[in-house]
């Protein structure tokens, strides 16, 4: 018998074909995710956007206005603002006040730490008055592990901000102000069961730190950006891809987020998701790829652009900006 080597991943589209999921097309557009820029106060190791203080890309007012028009589309129920740190874009406050008039679910993905800054602290009022749901990355419930990914001292600052937000009604039982946390693994392995991790987070954060939140979203690390660099440096890229392929779950693929969302880049380009955005893979197959040409009727039926990084969204319990998407396949030793 020949010695085995780690297999090269089967092309993702071929895997979908085997699962009778091709052509892989949009089901509808329910979520419009808008990346308003890559500038951020932090420079986290896991950030697929490679955001940081040195980045200058920032959405302009005219692009926001076109996004607002697009977001009014009847099938769109959720407007999801991400970055970078969205608070650093000077047009975001205006946009949130305007978008709130549409009466749709509004989400901002914030790093939380920025709300300690006097310049950005007033955003808490903006969020409260517009009933904005907050989603924030907290990789672990222990400071040491969290700080390894998000930077020295980040955990204590995040806990302080959550305490303040709890005081304003965020993340409290019975309150309509929603604070969700996002977990991603601290290395080249998949996240554990979302419900189990949520229990651990809630118990530890309430008992040790006296803070609360609503839901935990578990995300698998996508092999793009800084995480891909880490895998390459560590010599574990192929092994990680093999892990993702072995864990392929057709139920998670069926429910992949790209089938119900669109992602708008800071410059108005249109993508199937934020990861494709990072890889400059715009929507294709005849669908309009600029916000100026936004056409909901065509886009909601588009064929999705795929590549091997898509395995991260279909592995195990599935992964999306709203957490797990499928029932995990049975675990093998």
């Amino acid at each position: 018998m020949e010695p085995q080597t780690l297999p090269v991943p089967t092309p993702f589209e071929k895997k979908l074909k085997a699962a009778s999921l091709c052509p892989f097309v949009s089901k509808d557009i329910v979520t419009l995710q808008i990346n308003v820029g890559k500038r951020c106060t932090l420079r986290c190791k896991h950030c697929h956007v490679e955001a940081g203080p040195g980045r200058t890309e920032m959405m302009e007012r005219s692009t926001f206005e076109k996004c607002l028009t697009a977001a009014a589309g009847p099938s769109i129920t959720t407007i999801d603002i991400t970055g970078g740190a969205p608070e650093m874009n000077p047009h975001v406050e205006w946009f949130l006040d305007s978008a709130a008039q549409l009466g749709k679910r509004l989400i901002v993905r914030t790093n939380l730490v920025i709300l300690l800054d006097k310049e950005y602290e007033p955003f808490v009022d903006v969020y409260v008055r517009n009933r904005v749901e907050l989603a924030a990355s907290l990789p672990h419930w222990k400071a040491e592990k969290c700080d390894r990914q998000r930077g020295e001292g980040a955990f204590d600052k995040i806990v302080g901000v959550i305490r303040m937000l709890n005081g304003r009604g965020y993340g409290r039982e019975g309150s309509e102000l929603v604070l969700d946390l996002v977990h991603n693994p601290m290395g080249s392995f998949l996240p554990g069961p979302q419900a189990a991790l949520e229990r651990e987070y809630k118990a530890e954060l309430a008992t040790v730190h006296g803070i609360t939140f609503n839901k935990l979203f578990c995300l698998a690390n996508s092999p793009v950006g800084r995480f891909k660099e880490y895998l390459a440096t560590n010599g574990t890229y192929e092994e990680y891809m093999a892990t993702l392929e072995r864990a392929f779950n057709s139920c998670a693929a069926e429910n992949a987020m790209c089938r119900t969302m669109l992602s708008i880049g800071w410059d108005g380009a249109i993508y199937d998701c934020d990861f494709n955005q990072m890889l400059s893979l715009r929507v294709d197959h005849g669908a309009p790829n600029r916000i100026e040409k936004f056409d909901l009727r065509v886009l909601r039926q588009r064929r999705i652009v795929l590549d091997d990084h898509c395995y991260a969204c279909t592995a195990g319990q599935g992964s999306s900006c709203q957490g797990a998407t499928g029932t995990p396949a049975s675990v093998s030793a």
Partner: protein
Amino acid sequence: MAHQYYESADLADFPNIGECARDQGKAFFDYYGCSTTAGKLTDREKSLIALAVAHTEHCPYCIDAYTTKCLSLGLTSDEMMEAVHVGASMVAGAVLAHATQMRKIIRNNEM
């Protein structure tokens, strides 16, 4: 390339052992599945037990699988190492408890 008996890639073949003796394979995986997922004990507790047993049974595949699972569940290195010490001390204790047999025989046979 030197042939190795234990290779990490072999772990991927484990779910396929039921290709032969299918009934027994299915029975094992059903049992394995319900025994190792959360019940009265949490995923975390069961994974730490499995990790300790993986070490006492010297199974490199199980050590690989359950170290990764413990990491996935957010367990720290200290917590995992404590579980391994439980396994190690149980093995040591089981060996030493047999010294009572030795002592009994000595007592019975020595003048």
